[in-house]
């Protein structure tokens, strides 16, 4: 009896907790309202199941708890009832899966006009690369990295010369412009995660991964690493500033391009970069065109 009361109390308590909880999704700052609505549909269907199944459980305990002289009913099975329940469950599943898959269909379909920006992870910081005026990221890879070329941009690739390299932990994006975030890691797995954007994706060394989104709100947001990457995992932070087109352009104009980096480096350092690039026997795996 007490356990039935406890179950009802836990169900009601969960509903109250849900309604009063100060912990809920952060305000959405990207185009991924379809992910949010798939989540909300899933929540409603699951809540109905959670409440009704547990109340049925409590009711069964109360009505059929042992009292002297009671005897259970003998009923091995009821195929009709089982078929009905299977049908309704299947319907609930379809109701959740359909919006989920529709949202995923958008997630995997990068718009043709999306701007490309690269986020690079390493233990335990973020750096960023923009493609420059030509709109194309040059090839890059660990095999091109030298102390003076920390991004590992291939100096022999003309597309890489105008790439804009951002050393700090700060990414800027223009509001309202779709962006394909191209992700690569210098060392271990990381994950580019901005809670307000909803989207996230792992960075995998040896691969180029990506996702896309459109920032819809001006503001400054945290970038977190969401894939365990060692003892500094919790400190691997960055910021993303979403701002109007004009201020974004102004900011971008102040950043250094790879050409400028080459011009400022000592001749020995440049020689070393080219020596390394020329000695590469394997093609760069990070190239994105």
């Amino acid at each position: 009896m007490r356990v039935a009361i406890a179950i009802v109390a836990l169900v009601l308590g969960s509903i109250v907790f849900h309604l009063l909880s100060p912990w809920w999704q952060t305000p959405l700052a990207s185009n991924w309202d379809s992910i949010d609505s798939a989540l909300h549909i899933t929540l409603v269907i699951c809540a109905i199941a959670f409440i009704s199944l547990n109340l049925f459980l409590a009711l069964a305990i109360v009505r059929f708890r042992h009292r002297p002289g009671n005897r259970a009913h003998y009923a091995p099975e009821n195929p009709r009832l089982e078929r009905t329940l299977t049908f309704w469950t299947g319907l609930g599943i379809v109701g959740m899966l359909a919006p989920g898959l529709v949202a995923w269909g958008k997630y995997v379909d990068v718009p043709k006009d999306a701007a490309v920006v690269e986020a690079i992870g390493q233990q335990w910081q973020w750096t960023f690369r923009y493609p420059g005026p030509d709109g194309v990221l040059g090839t890059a890879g660990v095999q091109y990295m030298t102390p003076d070329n920390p991004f590992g941009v291939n100096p022999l690739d003309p597309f890489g010369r105008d790439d804009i390299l951002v050393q700090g932990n700060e990414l800027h994006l223009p509001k309202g412009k779709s962006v394909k975030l191209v992700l690569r890691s210098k060392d271990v797995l990381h994950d580019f995660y901005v809670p307000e954007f909803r989207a996230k994706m792992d960075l995998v060394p040896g691969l180029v991964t990506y996702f896309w989104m459109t920032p819809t709100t001006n503001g400054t947001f945290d970038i977190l690493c969401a894939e365990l990457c060692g003892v500094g995992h919790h400190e691997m932070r960055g910021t993303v500033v979403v701002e109007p087109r004009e201020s974004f352009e102004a900011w971008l104009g102040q950043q250094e391009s790879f050409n400028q980096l080459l011009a400022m480096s000592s001749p020995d350092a440049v020689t070393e970069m080219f020596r390394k690039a020329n000695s590469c026997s394997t093609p760069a795996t990070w190239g994105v065109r």
Partner: protein
Amino acid sequence: MATTIADDLRPMHHPKTWVGKYVWSQDHKVIAIQYGVTAIAIGLVALVLSVLMRLQLGFPGLFPWIQPENYLQYVSMHGMIMVVYLLTALLLGGFGNYMIPLMIGARDMVFPFVNMLSYWIYLLSVLVLVSGFFVPGGPTGAGWTLYPPQAISEGTPGNQWGIVTMLGSLAIFIIAFTMGGLNYVTTVLQARTRGMTLMRMPLTVWGIFIASIMGLLAFPALFVAAIMMLLDHLLGSSFFMPAMMTMGQESNTQGGSPLLFQHLFWFFGHPEVYIVALPAFGIVSDLISVHARKNIFGYRMMVWAIVIIGGLSFLVWAHHMYVSGMNPYFGFFFATSTLIIAIPTAIKVYNWLLTLWRGDIHLRVPMLFAIAFLFTFIHGGLTGLFLGNVSVDVPLSDTFFVVGHFHMVMGVSPILVIFGAIYHWYPKITGRMWNETLGQVHFWVTFLGVYAVYLPMHYLGILGVPRRYYALGETSFIPESAHLANEAISVAAIIVFAAQFLFFYNMIWNLLRGPKADPNPWGAASLEWQTPQTPPGHGNWGPHLPTVYRWAYDYSVPHASRDFIPQNEPPSAEAPSEEAAL
């Protein structure tokens, strides 16, 4: 045929010495207890580690001796111990060993010597695992998933020695499991007594049987992954290691795929969830049926649901990898297969509830744990639909929502079943009875406590709090109240931790001083309660094996004199066989 093996008394070498009886024992019951005690002992280590984690998360900075590397080591060891060395070993090595021969009417496992070997090799794997705490650098801190490259790269605790003891221990464990698993499967298929058809077996045996088959198919994937990573680490191969930098230096690895490891790991890892869940499903079915004095509702559907879940669970592994960087188009397939598996799982839940409906429910401690399981499993199963539903998973993956979900569904739920099962079978295993009051207190604190621990975690996850963080630090989106939630969770966790000592006290004290138990205190129909001795002697059944005339669920049969009819009771007017009605 099966009966010739089961009825053959010749291979029964009754042990003559204390060592032969209790140490190098080939008796399935002793081996089961050895497995169970070892698993619970190492589980206690994992329990302590979880408290240490909660101390850090609830009160960051208060315990300066918990550094980030320690925290990650706690996380990793806690996870691996709980999933593999506690749950798998206890449910299959412990309950599987004890229950299979007794429930199917056999004298022992078909390969008693291999069975003994399985335990000792398991013990070795546990010792190698524990040695990780004492090697230079301590145990691995790569997370229980052990993802390369970080598992064997600079910046991860235990990347030199700890990872070797972990991978070595896993390989040894898998050898031990294979010996046990082959034994369980062969015994179920070959050693059933007269009349014990497959469709008369208790669901406990079905759950353990299918889980063993799954283990035999899934563990090899982990085995090769462990060996390949050991080769990468010790011999410098590059199965999982791409060209990369480690701490500013170019590594001498090239061309390997970190994703390959993730596929191998989860090809094992997802079926592993069901390797733990299916025995728990089976056991809880029997607890509910016995204590509700009613046959399990839709037995045949329950059996098929176990088989279908077992099969489908091999087709869903990449739902752990939606944001891993694998080809995103896989998401469509794996989301669909994952949500389909919810249908047979839901059927099981319905059938448990319908078993209670119109029952005669005795709310004894084992039944309370079974009911608590229903509540936590409904909760954990439903939150799984969020994570399986690919696009909904994207914001939630790697957050505390995942932590809340999997603890609810494969931590709390099976452990509640294990508690229920221990209370349920303790009188048969020990011949003594535990204390009801202590059992009740243990139940209430554990049940309400775990919900207080895990419900708020889901909400922190929806907020976006990432998992495996030593400290949240400064963020713009996590309010001060979330730190309060973490404190409350930690306090609840410590209370639940403390309550477990009531359980241990209850079990150990009453082992020595408890009142003598009735051989069948719950009035159960299945065969393990019908042994001539309690606890059952070596060989289980005395001179003659039992003959089975009915299924394990003849409770409250109309016109029968008692509200249960043992499986080995021949049909008569007093004990009609209603099975024909099926």
